[in-house]
């Protein structure tokens, strides 16, 4: 593959242009993917951070969790049969701080479980983003639907729901605020979750999609990500096609002197591999740097798993694009090249 490398060294500008385009497209893809993940965390970290398991909603809720009301008798029986299970509810609401400033949040309450924060009556545990808004441990918060007061007991990291910080409160306080006795959801962790005849069951992924706006938001962003991936594949195909057209004479002569067509394909693949690897390495480095300097308010979350998965996809798409362009090389007749002038 020395010949492929030599060509790249001698024609730096040509390959630099292709590399910079791939770099820009892959960088943009990583950034949008980071935003998609960030928004996903912002929308549903409370649910996403739960272990794999099964969620159960009331059948009458028509798969909409905030319409779900699980019968207390059914809930009690499930919690007895499955000690690891927990029932929980989430509702959007607000609290007023000591300066009477209102803060939107998602109230969460649950039965006794290690998966959710334990709070006593009159206590509240908040997502840390509210600390940045000036709320401190020991502050007193109020809600106009609640007769008492909440004392801030502490903060937890990355507990968001529907783009709002989560507030863990006791079940009795929750029932007073929302005038409801039943819980919305039951969650049983583990792979072998049972089928419960009175309830609809959902996997983690299905339950996320039941959250209003989650699916629409993620679909839009993921569509952009995949479009960018497809565009990068097309760029490879088009760019290599144009380069191949310019090199018909060269390929023809190489074929005339006996070079195998597969060697010409290997040349194209090698060049594609080098360009993509360098472009992706730069994109990964820059996107990781971006995640460190991204503004506080920007929901940006780019994991190495996502980066590696997208990089592998870029490689595959690049390979397909370069191979498609290579089919014209297969059809080049050596004689054509000999009849052409100097290369």
């Amino acid at each position, binding site marked *: 593959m020395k010949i492929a490398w030599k*060509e790249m060294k001698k024609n730096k500008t040509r390959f630099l242009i292709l590399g910079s385009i791939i770099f820009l497209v892959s960088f943009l893809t990583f950034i949008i993917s980071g935003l998609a993940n960030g928004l996903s965390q912002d929308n549903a970290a409370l649910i996403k951070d739960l272990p794999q398991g099964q969620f159960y909603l009331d059948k009458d809720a028509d798969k909409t969790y905030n319409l779900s009301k699980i019968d207390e008798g059914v809930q009690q029986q499930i919690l007895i049969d499955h000690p690891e299970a927990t029932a929980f509810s989430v509702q959007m609401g607000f609290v007023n701080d000591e300066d009477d400033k209102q803060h939107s949040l998602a109230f969460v309450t649950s039965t006794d479980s290690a998966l959710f924060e334990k709070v006593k009556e009159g206590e509240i545990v908040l997502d840390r983003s509210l600390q940045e808004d000036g709320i401190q441990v020991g502050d007193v918060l109020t809600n106009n639907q609640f007769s008492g007061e909440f004392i801030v007991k502490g903060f937890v990291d990355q507990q968001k729901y529907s783009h709002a910080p989560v507030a863990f409160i006791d079940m009795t306080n929750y029932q007073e605020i929302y005038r409801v006795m039943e819980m919305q959801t039951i969650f049983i962790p583990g792979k072998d979750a049972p089928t419960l005849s009175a309830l609809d069951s959902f996997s983690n992924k299905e339950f996320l999609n039941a959250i209003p706006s989650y699916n629409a938001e993620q679909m839009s962003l993921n569509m952009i990500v995949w479009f960018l991936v497809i565009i990068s594949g097309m760029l490879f195909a088009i760019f290599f096609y144009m380069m191949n057209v310019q090199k018909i004479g*060269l390929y023809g002569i*190489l074929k005339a002197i*006996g070079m195998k067509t597969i060697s010409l394909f290997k040349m194209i693949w090698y060049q594609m591999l080098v360009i993509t690897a360098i472009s992706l390495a730069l994109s990964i480095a820059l996107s990781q740097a971006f995640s460190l300097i991204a503004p506080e308010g920007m929901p940006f979350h780019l994991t190495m798993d996502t980066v590696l998965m997208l990089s592998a996809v870029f490689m595959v798409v690049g390979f397909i694009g370069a191979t498609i362009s290579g089919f014209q090389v297969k059809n080049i007749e050596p*004689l054509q090249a*000999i009849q052409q002038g100097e290369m």
Partner: protein
Amino acid sequence: MSAFIIDEVKKTFSNGEVEEEILKGVNLSLKEGEITALIGPSGSGKSTILTIAAGLQKASTGEIMFDGKDMTKMSPEEVRHIRATDFGFVFQSSHLVPFLTVEEQLQLMLDVSETKMSKKEQTNAIEEMLKLVEMEHRKESYPSSLSGGERQRVAIARAIIHRPKILFADEPTASLDTKRSKGVMELLQELTRTLKLTTLMVTHDEEMLPYVDRVITMRDGYIVE
């Protein structure tokens, strides 16, 4: 003994509904250590017979015997293998690879021919060949910095570095002035004799004929003398 036999080769081109017979039955035997020149007016079929003999296009009918085997009955892969190992090519334009240095052009040909030489033997062979064509001082130069004559010398070196049995040269002096053309022909003559090559050359330049062993004249798809 004939190293290469072209027997009753015909070539017909179809241009829509019109069929044109370019070669009307060509018979030719090439001998080892000899340069055979094909001459004739434009359209006489001399380049067509050269490219058919070199396995770059197919004959419509006839046989091309090389090493006792009929090339017209071989698969494209077998023909490619012969081109890589047993044939050498010099074209009208040198057709050097623009991004390879002079010595890399020769290394490429050794790679393509899948030579069994060790790395050291290959390096020595390249050095020897560059001395032979008097290009060792330009071994690290790129084609763009060489003169027309120098490029053609490198093209000849590339064509024979893998020790082919047959050398095909299609108007190798057409793009050169008289002095450089004579230099290239002297080189071809010397290499054909010392390396015992069988060389088939197409030319329209009668000044080059003193350097060849046999002259074959073609006209209208036939060999006339």
